[in-house]
């Protein structure tokens, strides 16, 4: 018989609280590296200055420490729960929300969540988190916190294309999304693109593609080519950092594809900004 490993809801809450603060104050090294490379490659002087200030801000935030961006987002949490983990105390969901409350309060992060889309009273502690749970093998619990700002989130789009729309249809949709977003999502942007699955799955694929911050090329050469082609086309648009013109409109395009129906070709773009944050820990 396999033995269960016990993790208390308090440990989970503590971990989530830590991750909220770390994610908001420290930009992942991979994103910072993309920013620095973009600054060095940018030929348009005003754009280069903007990118230099963006890089400087990342260092200031980490040194203080304080949030990189005032929009410390809605808290998206991915929990990968080993099947041999036994959570004691409160439920996983309550533990995650307790962590968000603690992190956002004690970490002086902004509370940006309203309880109802129409009545719009602030919940006061940035809860509830948007929690995605996946069961995995083993006896560990991996938590990833991705605070998501809405300047960029609002520029995300989803379309249920048809098989006849094909690759060209998907490319056109992605490029149109960037064009419509323009200066709003604080370019340079980062794009998570989901392709396939069902209506709800394609949105999650796009979120994961953005949140995973995959380093290195896409494992499938077909999608690797597509990512590179889309990035090159986006960076020919001239939108530039903050929309004032320049080479650097986007830092990355990351695709996640999944099996889909014979009748469908869903595509979703989760728009991310240059403050695409995440922090992760395994208990």
């Amino acid at each position, binding site marked *: 018989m396999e033995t269960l490993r016990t993790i208390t809801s308090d440990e989970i809450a503590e971990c989530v609280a830590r991750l909220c603060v770390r994610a908001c104050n420290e930009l992942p090294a991979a994103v910072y590296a993309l920013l620095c490379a973009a600054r060095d490659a940018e*030929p348009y002087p005003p754009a280069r200055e903007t990118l230099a200030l963006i890089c400087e801000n990342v260092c200031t935030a980490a040194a203080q420490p304080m949030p990189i961006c005032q929009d410390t987002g809605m808290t998206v949490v991915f929990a990968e729960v080993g099947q041999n983990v036994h959570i004691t105390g409160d439920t996983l969901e309550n533990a995650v929300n307790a962590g968000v409350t603690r992190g956002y309060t004690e970490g002086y992060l902004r509370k940006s969540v309203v309880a109802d889309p129409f009545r719009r009273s602030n919940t*006061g502690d940035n809860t509830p988190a948007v929690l995605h749970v996946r069961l995995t093998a083993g006896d560990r619990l991996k938590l990833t916190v991705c605070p998501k700002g809405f300047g960029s989130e609002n520029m995300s789009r989803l379309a249920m294309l048809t098989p006849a729309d094909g690759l060209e249809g998907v490319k056109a949709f992605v490029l149109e999304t960037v064009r419509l977003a323009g200066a709003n999502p604080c370019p340079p942007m980062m794009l998570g693109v989901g392709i396939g699955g069902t209506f709800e799955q394609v949105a999650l694929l796009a979120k994961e593609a953005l949140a995973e911050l995959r380093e290195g090329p896409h494992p499938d050469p077909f999608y690797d080519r597509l990512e590179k082609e889309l990035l090159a086309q986006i960076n020919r648009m001239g939108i530039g950092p903050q929309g004032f013109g320049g080479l650097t409109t986007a830092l990355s395009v990351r695709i996640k594809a999944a099996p889909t129906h014979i009748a469908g070709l869903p595509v979703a773009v989760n728009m991310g900004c240059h403050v695409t944050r995440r922090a992760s820990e395994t208990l």
Partner: protein
Amino acid sequence: MAVSLLSPFTPQALWALRAGDQVLLSGVVYTARDAAHARFCDALGKGEPLPVDLRGQTIFYAGPTPTPPGRSSGSIGPTTSVRMDPYTPQLLRYGVRAVIGKGDRGSAARDAFTANGAVYFVAIGGCAAYMASCVKSVEVVAYDDLGTESVKRLTVENMPLIVAIDTLGHNAYVDGQARYLRDFATDIR
């Protein structure tokens, strides 16, 4: 070279600005986002006074993080301006002289700047730790119940801004992208 400016502005100080100019802003600005804008326009619609007199003043579309102990401000930066477009013509007519946000505006809001001799400034989005160092004081002056969306009076010093729409209606987004594509885009790729 950046121009140093003091808010509140005289109308003349704004006439001299051109889209694309870099500005270092000092003085007083008031934060207001979506919820505060809705309340402002509701009050104006009913002929009631605003909780703070914003005539001649500058509005910053911003909701800062809470100020930690020992600091003068939390992280602060602009939110997407286009969401304030439905309220902008009315507030500029009322007398707001300048706003600070990010992103281009719709045509009605663009026209409202020219019609009222007002200026649209842009702050770099997502540079909020850096911008916090330009904020010397933060004080809630209205709508405390809105939390981060309350109206706050900020004293700022040398806050880096770009003139996005000037009093003549020139637009730094349109001009900047055109200039890049015309003069810089060809010699790469």
